[in-house]
């Protein structure tokens, strides 16, 4: 059997690996979105006290500073004593928590680029802080955030391949199976894998550009 036949035969497994990678990506980005937005809102509009602000800062530093492999090990093996966590869940948590740290920065600068007058006007007409954020600031900030968020999307796709170190059988690991069971062909197999990653990245970016275009209103045109 030559390598192309093997790749063809095992293509469903590569696709399955791709599926795992995409689900992992979606879940970690969703978790990161919730955490990132929460941190950003607490930092910008939460209590100024050190008891709130310091842990947020520390969270950001830790998750941006510690190599992701170590985080994966901590979440998979370190949490083993606390509760039984699957490889996949540990990968979502480790990658999602870190993405949260990155996304909090994206959202923070997006919210900060909304002119102060928008908040003042919303509050002056009787909106509560929460209403002003929800109806006036968030819709504007999210438009500013889509661009940088697209970068985050692209870099997290690549990071999903690291989840194999704690036993998540995603695309790269499936590729590894083909390479080791045929004892070679590294280049051919990884070329196919690279193409698959590229397609997901392209599709995701196109989707986000579409969203950006759809949300564009005069005064919020897509910026170059």
């Amino acid at each position, binding site marked *: 059997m030559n390598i192309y036949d093997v790749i063809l035969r095992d293509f469903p497994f590569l696709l399955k690996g791709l599926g795992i990678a995409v689900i992992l990506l979606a879940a970690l980005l*969703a*978790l990161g979105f919730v955490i990132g937005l929460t941190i950003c809102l607490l930092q910008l509009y939460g209590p100024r006290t050190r008891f709130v602000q310091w842990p947020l800062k520390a969270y950001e530093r830790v998750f941006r500073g510690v190599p992701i492999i170590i985080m994966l090990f901590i979440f998979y093996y370190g949490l083993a004593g606390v509760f039984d*966590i699957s490889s996949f869940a540990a990968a979502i948590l480790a990658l999602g928590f870190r993405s949260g740290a990155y996304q909090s920065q994206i959202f923070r600068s997006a919210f900060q680029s909304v002119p102060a007058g928008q908040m003042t006007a919303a509050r002056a007409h009787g909106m509560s802080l929460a209403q002003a954020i929800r109806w006036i600031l968030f*819709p504007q900030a999210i438009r500013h955030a889509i661009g940088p968020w697209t970068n985050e999307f692209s870099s997290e796709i690549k990071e999903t391949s690291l989840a194999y170190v704690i036993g998540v059988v995603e695309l790269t690991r499936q590729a*590894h199976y083909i390479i080791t*069971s045929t*004892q*070679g062909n590294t280049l051919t197999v990884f070329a196919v894998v690279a193409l698959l990653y590229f397609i997901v990245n392209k599709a995701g970016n196109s989707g986000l550009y579409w969203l950006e275009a*759809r949300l564009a209103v005069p005064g919020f045109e897509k910026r170059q």
Partner: protein
Amino acid sequence: MRFLGLETKTLTAGLILSLGTLAAANSQAADTYTVGVEASFPPWAYVEAGEYKGIAIDAMKKIAENEGLEIEFKDLPFPSLIPALSAEKIDILATGLTVTEERSKVIDFTVPWWETNDVIVVPEDSDLNVFTAVCCGANVGVQGGSSQKAWMEENVLDSDIDVNLKSYDSYVTAISDMLNGRLTAVDVDDTSAQEYINEGRPVKIAGKIFIRAPLALAVSKGDPQGLLPKLNQGIVALADSGQWATIVHDYIPGVTVPPVPGNMPAFVDTYAKPVAGLPDLGN
């Protein structure tokens, strides 16, 4: 602002998904044992057409069947296997795992079921021998976390022999790199090397290092699940029935099957008398 509604829905879906995964972690049956394997380690364990294969896989299945154990396999990269056993993420480790003193301190070994020696693999057209391939500024590849790596560090690097040791996530990658001209030689176990050569790859064995390294299965330190007696009995019974030799020959035709149990080094505490499940054995 319709998109905000959409956003919320996506988010909720994501969260439910994440929670679902967390819950799934606990759903596996209590008396199914998880067998950790490095599934990119032929001929011991690998995946072909989506199925686990290899000597360790087939033998483990047979032992489980004979001893009445429910098992499932979990693939983890080699450097992660021993931490996984320590953290009790897996119950049994079944791969071409070499018995070493260092490892015996953190995990418990079953009786050895195989014995390997290491070989120095070089490209087919190379005229180096085992001495000239491992000296004089040569770049030698090993699999990270492997016994070959430990042996090279202990016996070559520490003796001030001028060699650059390079670690790879698998010996297969190391050999690929050698064929690309980035390595002089690769230090690998003889079983893997023979298999590789059988595939018709352009490599040859430059020489053998007789270390009589035993391979065995392993369980968490202290054998919390009480698996050691069953596994020990299972290994011996498998060999006695002749099934072991059949499995081995499925993967490496013509190879000499070492006696079971093999060489049991004194530094392994689980090899001290009486050996679990095999009271007649031991040092």
